[in-house]
């Protein structure tokens, strides 16, 4: 592999890589603002200027202050090149930390902060702001300008999701390039020149495409802020867990940012994965974190005498066991969920197969939604592939389930998740199911939904931020997500709850921990990232 030298360190590069990209791949950061690995090169911030000593170096005539003579004298300085634009060459000698390069970084940083508003205490970006970080590493000095900074519009509503602050903006054009190149929607552009530069919307438009939150994500400063996250949490209190979005079958990789003090998730951020989602996520995916804390079912529900009573989780588990005890073997319908992790689906199917001997397997899922050819997949469910793999490749639909209930083929239902394509009226037969000795629909769910409303016993389980598990996306890639927050009130994961219910029924299974579940899952149901033909590796 060809290499070049960056501050004495050998950096390998691929043909066509720029210096900054090769360094980025090697894990070495050259200070930059406007460059982004997923966008085109703009080279307008000038922060990544480096000294290239090999090849033909241009020397520029400058005036230098001579301390002894107390006057300016003629001198030369090497012409610096932007590392984001210059292609790496074999045996190049690049210096990002030489005296000239550091002075350039210092000056660039000073210019960027010249008219910057004193907003740190109220700016969301504080704690993850490149201006703050590079001030400490590059500038380290106070302001030299004594005049009033230039004032520009602040708090401009760009759309339903984004607010723009022109004073904080450093005009790096990342947002413009993102909308142009990734979304294909030229809704943002720059206006005026020099000091009075500003980002504006196309006339008559607002920022309303499906990836608006990514403009906030690429913005290196607090110019573009998300209205959803604005003022909610300070980022240095948030810890990040690696997650997978449960919004659709693309399975974008995420960082689940949560505050461990309150055990609450405050936002998602995209996690880079070249194979799956590149560097981005869609707005709906970014908003799925609301489902971790809103519309949750946190206590059991038991229907008795026509009324739905709330019950503590333990009682709901016992009630579920009582209901299932009386079920005729072979007449139980098991409903897998395309919204739930493979581990949950696997243990449910195992219980149904081993203890009840049933082969009536159905799949519930959210309906299809609007797709595009950027990231959004038509299938709104993260784990249809995983649930189907558990069922052996085929499962009947919810419409089939209603028919089978009405015709008496099945006399009891155990279902996972509350999401379904049918509405409450269509699910009425399930709600009115009278098995041997009483109502017979047990539902395990984390959130409220139509399927939970049609159950006679609802047992609360952990949401997917509260457990570690696997989703298999539309490409067939199995991706693991890690637990971020604790489930409230002693709520356990669905697979743990099923083992608990099974214990009441006399079902013994040699599974105690997540690793045991994963070892038990067959090879065609991978639990580790990799092709589906790879053997299931023990989880870390």
């Amino acid at each position, binding site marked *: 592999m060809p290499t070049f030298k960056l501050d004495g360190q050998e950096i390998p590069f691929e043909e066509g890589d720029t210096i900054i990209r090769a360094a980025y791949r090697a894990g070495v950061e050259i200070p930059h603002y406007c460059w982004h690995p997923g966008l085109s090169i703009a080279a307008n911030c000038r922060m990544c200027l480096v000294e290239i000593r090999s090849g033909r170096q241009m020397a520029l005539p400058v005036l230098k202050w001579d301390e002894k003579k107390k006057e300016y004298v003629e001198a030369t300085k090497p012409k610096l090149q932007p590392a984001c634009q210059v292609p790496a060459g074999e045996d190049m000698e690049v210096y990002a930390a030489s005296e000239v390069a550091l002075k350039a970084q210092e000056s660039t940083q000073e210019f960027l902060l010249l008219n910057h508003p*004193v907003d740190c205490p109220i700016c969301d970006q504080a704690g993850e702001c490149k201006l*703050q970080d590079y*001030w400490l590493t590059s500038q*380290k000095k*106070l*302001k030299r300008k004594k005049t009033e900074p230039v004032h520009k519009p602040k708090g401009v509503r760009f759309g339903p999701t984004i607010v723009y602050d022109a004073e904080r903006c450093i005009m790096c054009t990342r947002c413009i390039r993102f909308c142009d190149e990734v979304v294909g929607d030229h809704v943002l552009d720059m206006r005026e020149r020099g000091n009075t530069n500003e980002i504006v919307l196309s006339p008559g438009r607002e920022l309303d495409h499906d990836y608006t939150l990514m403009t906030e994500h690429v913005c290196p400063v607090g110019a573009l802020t998300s209205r959803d996250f604005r003022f909610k949490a300070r980022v240095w209190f948030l810890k990040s867990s690696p997650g997978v979005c449960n919004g659709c079958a693309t399975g974008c990789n995420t960082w689940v940012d949560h505050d461990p003090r309150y055990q609450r998730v405050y936002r998602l951020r995209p996690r880079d994965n070249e194979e799956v989602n590149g560097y981005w996520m869609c707005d709906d995916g970014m908003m799925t974190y609301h489902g971790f804390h809103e519309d949750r079912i946190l206590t059991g529900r038991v229907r008795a005498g026509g009324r739905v009573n709330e019950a503590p989780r333990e009682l709901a588990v016992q009630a579920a066991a009582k209901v299932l005890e009386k079920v005729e073997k072979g007449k139980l319908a098991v409903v897998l969920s395309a919204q739930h992790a493979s581990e949950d689906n696997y243990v449910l199917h195992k219980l149904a197969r081993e203890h009840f001997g049933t082969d009536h397997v159905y799949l519930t899922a959210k309906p299809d939604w609007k797709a595009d050819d950027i990231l959004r997949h038509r299938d709104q469910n993260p784990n249809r592939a995983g649930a189907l793999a558990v069922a052996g490749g085929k499962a009947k639909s919810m419409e089939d389930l209603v028919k089978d209930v009405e015709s008496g083929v099945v006399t009891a239902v155990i279902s996972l998740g509350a999401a379904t394509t049918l509405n409450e009226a269509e699910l009425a037969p399930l709600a009115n199911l009278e098995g041997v000795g009483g109502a017979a629909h047990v539902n395990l769910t984390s959130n409220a939904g139509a399927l939970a409303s049609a159950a006679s016993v609802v047992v609360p389980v952990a949401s997917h931020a509260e457990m570690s598990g696997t989703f298999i996306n539309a490409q067939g890639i199995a991706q693991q997500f890690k637990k971020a927050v604790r489930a409230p009130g002693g709520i356990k994961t669905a697979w743990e709850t099923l083992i608990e219910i099974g214990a009441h029924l006399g079902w013994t299974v040699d599974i105690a921990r997540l690793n045991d579940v994963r070892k038990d899952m067959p090879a065609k149901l991978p639990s580790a990232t990799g092709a589906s033909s790879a053997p299931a590796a023990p989880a870390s």
Partner: protein
Amino acid sequence: MEPYYEELEDEGSLELPSEPMKLNMGPSHPAMHGTIRMVLDLDGETVMDVDIQPGYLHRGFEKSCERGTWSQVFPYADRLNYVSPMLNNVGFALAVEKLVGLEVPERCTYYRTVLGELARICDHLTCNGATAMELGAFTPFLWLVKVRDWIWDILEQETGARLTHSFGRIGGMAKPPTDQLEETVLAIFPEIDHAMMETEALLMKNRIFLDRTQGVGNLSPERAIAMGCTGPVLRSTGVDYDVRKANPYMFYDRFDFDIPVGHDGDNYDRFVCRFEELRQSMKIIRQALEQMPKSGPVNSPDIRYVYPEKEDVYNSIEGTIAHFKLVMEGLKPPPGEVYSFTEGGNGELGFFIVSDGSGTPYRVRCRPPCWYNLAACKEMLVGDMIADIIPTFGSINMIGGECDR
């Protein structure tokens, strides 16, 4: 019939079969300074062996330092040797400044010297006063503590607190000296002299005091060096090692002062050593106050480590960012380690700090001088009697906060 008891030739030896008695001088004992447990093996009143068990005041300072920023170490540093907190503050600040390579203005160094030596005076006043009190001389304790209180008033005037000031900062001090510093400090010196004179008049020719301190708790210079003792404990044995002369730091090489040295290494020598050091401290303070620039900044102008002026913090983005980084992430010394040592109240107070480049210390290790003095205390005590434990232990000035951290 044989006599009921036998005449013993040697008072100390027993002819009857017997075992040494184990007596516990527990962690809370009214006659001991600080919480220390000593399990004594006694032969009558004579101490055959003593098992000194420190650690009852261990508060996990060094570990707690790893859970905050560098500047959040100062309250912990204060509570090490809590009778001379300024010396600990200054010691730690010097350590981090050494790691960073940060220069402080001259005015700051002189200010640190003045406050540090005042703290040393307080330390010695307390130690000697308490030693005397434990021997039954209650009055000198009250005289010396009265003067100490007036010194604490000066420290309160300067720092805002009498004892736990947390006044040191990396790159300077929390506030510049007040205008009354020189006046109040010089006014206190005649009072210190007077109190010491009266105390010495009462004690130095007192038969009881001399019998109880001279020849008691002896330590030889070889053993003192072998055990790692420093400070008055070492100097009372005759070794003239003082960090301020041997490895001058701050401006101690600009001052003219002596190092008092004893010759027997007994309680009496330690007592006198401390008083003489006290007088030398007063001499140093006088010179420091003369040489100190009367105006000018006290803090380093490097805003990577020192808070910028509030005017800049509120009105410029750079000031805000500097303040933000210092508060939220802590100042970031370059990765590396340093051992910096100063003369604390009890001897060589060292700070070994390791930085991993982040705002949180990786390791802050304090070399507590009285830990090693305490180890040597065992040798001083073996062979003496229970009653000798009190003045001996008092004279090594074991401060629980520093010893156990």
